[in-house]
């Protein structure tokens, strides 16, 4: 229920009382090792080997980590101004002529404002445009104007489009190379700035369309994507101290979904299946997994960790992640409650 704007918003119990950080700030990395601008630096490496790669943005090269490419390849960088409709239609026009186009903006603008252009100019013709979108899900405290809580739901319905939600710097580097090699349109959710770098420790290799089991365990199966994989890995470590044994199946490619890996993992009896995503519980990975399992006749206990079907509050990200269940503390609390 929305309160009157003339009433003060009372502090919520247990809130840490933090301040909204800058919208452009990196997602809190909580002491994890980091790498700066993994997308932009990887794109530069690729562009040194391939002259068909071009970059375009709508006044957000800085905040989508495209700036290293813009500096290194000024002739192949196109500043389209604050005009997302022409950004994506022009990206289609460039792709028609044989270029591999990386077009960047915020996820809200790609999914909401430019949808028809991505649908008809790019996806319908399966053109080689890679849409790289910063601030996916709940990665800014600025409120609904900048929180793309439903971008996966919007794009999952779009034929021809491959959707990737990487979880850390290592994965962004590998996924950027993989989508550059992939023929056809891709939507990649981007973590920018100083990005946590964890998966290298797991000997991880990103493969487009493949889910990867990062950890095994007999009590809970987390099926996770995006930065929520970092959160559930951490939650799994904490829960292990309480003798709760958690597996983590990381699903960075949302579409096409690796249904075989999901069915195999969830088909193992006796585990609570928990899908965790930085997205509304409507229309994202959770519903994709549920559909997959029901279709295959696999019916484990099933729960979702995700954002509520609501316009979310503004505030500091750690506060909001606690409030909406995405923090490690909140994940652990949810799992314990479900196991009781």
């Amino acid at each position: 229920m929305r309160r009157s704007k003339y009433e003060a918003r009372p502090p919520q119990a247990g809130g840490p009382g933090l301040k909204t950080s800058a919208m452009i700030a990196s997602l809190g990395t909580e002491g994890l090792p980091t790498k700066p601008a993994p997308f932009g630096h990887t794109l530069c490496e690729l562009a040194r080997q391939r002259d068909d790669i071009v970059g375009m943005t709508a006044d957000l090269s800085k905040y989508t980590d495209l700036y290293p490419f813009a500096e290194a390849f000024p002739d192949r960088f196109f500043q389209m101004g604050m005009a997302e409709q022409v950004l994506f239609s022009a990206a289609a026009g460039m792709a028609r002529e044989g270029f591999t186009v990386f077009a960047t903006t915020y996820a809200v603008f790609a999914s909401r404002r430019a949808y028809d252009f991505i649908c008809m100019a790019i996806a319908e013709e399966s053109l080689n445009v890679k849409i790289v979108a910063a601030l996916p899900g709940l990665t800014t405290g600025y409120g609904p104007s900048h929180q793309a809580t439903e971008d996966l739901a919007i794009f999952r319905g779009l034929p021809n489009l491959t959707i990737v939600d990487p979880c850390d710097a290592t994965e962004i580097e590998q996924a950027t190379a993989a989508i550059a090699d992939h023929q056809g349109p891709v939507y990649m959710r981007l973590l920018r700035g100083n990005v946590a770098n964890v998966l290298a420790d797991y000997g991880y290799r990103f493969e487009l369309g493949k889910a990867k089991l990062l950890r095994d365990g007999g009590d809970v199966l987390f099926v996770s994507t995006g930065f929520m994989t970092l959160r559930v890995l951490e939650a799994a470590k904490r829960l292990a101290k309480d003798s709760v044994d958690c597996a983590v199946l990381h699903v960075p490619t949302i579409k096409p979904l690796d249904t075989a890996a999901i069915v195999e993992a969830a088909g193992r009896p006796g585990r609570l299946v928990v899908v965790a995503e930085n997205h509304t519980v409507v229309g994202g990975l959770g519903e994709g997994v549920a559909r997959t399992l029901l279709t295959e006749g696999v019916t484990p206990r099933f729960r979702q960790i995700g954002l509520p079907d609501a316009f979310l509050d503004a505030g500091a990200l750690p506060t909001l992640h606690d409030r909406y269940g995405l923090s490690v503390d909140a994940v652990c609390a949810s799992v314990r409650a479900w196991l009781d």
Partner: protein
Amino acid sequence: MSSASPHRQSNVSLEERAYRIRRYAVRMGEVQGQGYVGQALGVADVLAVAYFHALRYRPDEPEWDGRDRFYLSIGHYAIALYAAMIEAGILPENELESYGGDDSRLPMSGMAAYTPGMEITGGSLGQGLGIAVGGALALRLKGSQSFIYNMLSDGELGEGSTWEAAQSAAHHGLDNLIAIVDFNNQQADGPSTQMLSAEPLEAKWAAFGWHCQRVDGNDIEAVRAAFDAARACREKKPRIVICDTRMCKGVPFLEARDKTHFIRVEPDEWALALQALDEGKPR
């Protein structure tokens, strides 16, 4: 390998080309019994100049890299473009009977994946000029001498995205981009000037940084001169030719009708329409 301007040396006049384009369009209209015949008849003169004077292309090699690209934003005008491409030898005449039918290469709304020579998927109005901006940037980056022609409609000038693209084309100095507006003042609900007027058009496009001309789109000599001037212009600007055309041009009893956006034609009127075209055939 055919030449890049196969029709320029032809003895067939542009008027004769326009007459034949109209005839093909009416025959396709008869296949469906109704449709976008009025637009096709109105724009036939502009397409005759485009395909038989202005554009460089190879009829037997529609994807030849050295071609000029003709982007049709207005998907429902496909009937007109199919007619022009049949006359140009890009499409075979015997496919005309399949227009708008199941599994046809000639769908009612033009799509790139269906039809040779159809460069883009139009139909979601307001997208063509933006795609043309990207195409023109790409051609420049490749060092190509080709031009992008984008045909849009007066109704499409109501879409904000058209003006985003207009601003972008001027900002990037796209002198290899020529927009053509078919201004027939007819939209689904009535005259475009009464739906959402874009006037004063010439002043508006000039203010957006474009080289702008406005001509009678059914005056072939005027259209030819404007197309030549658009291409020859030395300014580092995108160019636009606004063509005022008359819906159903060449078939007087259809020209006299009010609602012509998706015109209904009685079964016995198709032959009369062809007869009217034949009576007006240029000599």
